[in-house]
């Protein structure tokens, strides 16, 4: 008798377990696609240059970062990403964070503190300037105040994560956040192609360019890619500057949450410390911890090299994901005004941060 009654519970538990396994399995095809595109990018980098040289063609040396992004863009904007791959493709931010944490092994703690200190000063100026300018632009273009807040946070701090964190904290509409996310992603995609060109035209050092990409490009994946497109060293610096920016997310979101709660249009923040911890990007701590371990020789030289290579593979999956999730048709559907505000804001912020970095370069002589 008891078996008869217990059976449905056992079945329930088994179904739940199976559902969990299926959730995990759902991401496998997309992750395989990310790896395949990333690896194809790497093979193209190695072979296209050789082939062009053998046939005496003039062909620019395109790095694997750009190949991976271009392959992803080509799929996303022609045949589209089939449904079976979407869950796995969406894991690209997970790989980005794994890559950032492992990248910590390539930074000695002293460098992190020195560069992070410089970044922190520049980030504080960038965030204040960007927030003020974006709020002003939102008023000029008569955007809804909460949409303006989302665009301001997305431009000033860290793209999509900041927008999602702020949406929940200020009770903004889903529609507003999708407008803001589309604008930030479209502008990030443009930055991938324009930033390296501007950097080369201005003969920026790897150091200056990396800091600029980390300060001016909004989404972490695009900032890392824009840095890596310039050079490996610039990529490292872009990640460090962007990580410093990400660390500020909690404070900025908290400030806006308090403001909107004061206006009676959002929930009051009861425990500010818990709020800050909840919004704080934990991968920043992981990055610092790995950097501390590497500094105090917890890893041998070969092990640091293995960690650095693993970080590169994780970034490779991220770059493939950046291309795959960028769909220009979808972005166009979101309307012109938020995009225009975002575009004007981004151009001004890019110019402002470029001036900051060039000024800092003169002071510190990078």
């Amino acid at each position, binding site marked *: 008798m008891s078996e008869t009654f217990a059976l449905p519970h056992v079945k329930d538990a088994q179904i739940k377990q199976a559902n969990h396994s299926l*959730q995990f399995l759902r991401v496998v095809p997309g992750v395989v696609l990310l790896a395949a595109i990333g690896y194809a990018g790497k093979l193209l980098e190695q072979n296209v240059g050789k082939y062009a040289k053998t046939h005496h063609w003039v062909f620019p040396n395109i790095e694997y970062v750009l190949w991976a992004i271009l392959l992803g863009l080509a799929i996303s904007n022609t045949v589209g990403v089939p449904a079976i791959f979407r869950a796995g493709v969406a894991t690209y931010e997970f790989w980005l964070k794994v890559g950032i944490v492992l990248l910590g092994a390539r930074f000695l703690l002293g460098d992190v503190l020195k560069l992070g200190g410089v970044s922190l000063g520049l980030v504080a100026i960038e965030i204040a300037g960007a927030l003020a300018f974006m709020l002003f632009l939102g008023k000029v273009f008569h955007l809804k105040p909460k949409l303006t807040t989302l665009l301001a946070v997305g431009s000033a701090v860290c793209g999509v994560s900041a927008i999602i964190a702020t949406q929940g904290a200020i009770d903004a509409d889903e529609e507003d956040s999708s407008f803001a996310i589309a604008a930030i992603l479209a502008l990030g995609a443009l930055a991938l192609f324009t930033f390296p060109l501007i950097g080369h035209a201005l003969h920026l050092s790897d150091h200056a360019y990396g800091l600029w990409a980390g300060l001016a490009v909004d989404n972490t994946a695009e900032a890392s890619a824009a840095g890596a497109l310039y050079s490996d060293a610039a990529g490292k610096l872009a990640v460090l500057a962007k990580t410093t920016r990400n660390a500020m997310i909690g404070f900025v979101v908290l400030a806006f949450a308090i403001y909107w709660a004061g206006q009676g249009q959002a929930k009051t923040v009861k425990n500010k410390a818990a709020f800050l911890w909840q919004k704080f990007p934990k991968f920043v701590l992981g990055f610092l911890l790995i950097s501390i371990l590497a500094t105090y020789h917890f*890893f041998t030289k*070969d092990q640091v090299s293995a960690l650095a290579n*693993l970080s590169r*593979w994780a970034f490779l999956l991220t770059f493939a994901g950046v291309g795959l999730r960028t769909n220009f048709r979808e972005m166009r559907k979101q309307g012109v005004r938020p995009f225009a505000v975002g575009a004007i804001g981004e151009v001004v912020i890019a110019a402002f941060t470029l001036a900051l970095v060039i000024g800092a370069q003169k002071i510190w002589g990078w």
Partner: protein
Amino acid sequence: MPANESTPQRSRLSWDTWAVLAAFLAAVLIRVGVIKHIPW
């Protein structure tokens, strides 16, 4: 990361934290010698 709309029981850890744990697991495996070499 996107929300898992149909997940019956949400994990208590964020994707952010899972990424840190995955990176540290890899670091430990490399440190203890389970993974010796990662080519690039």
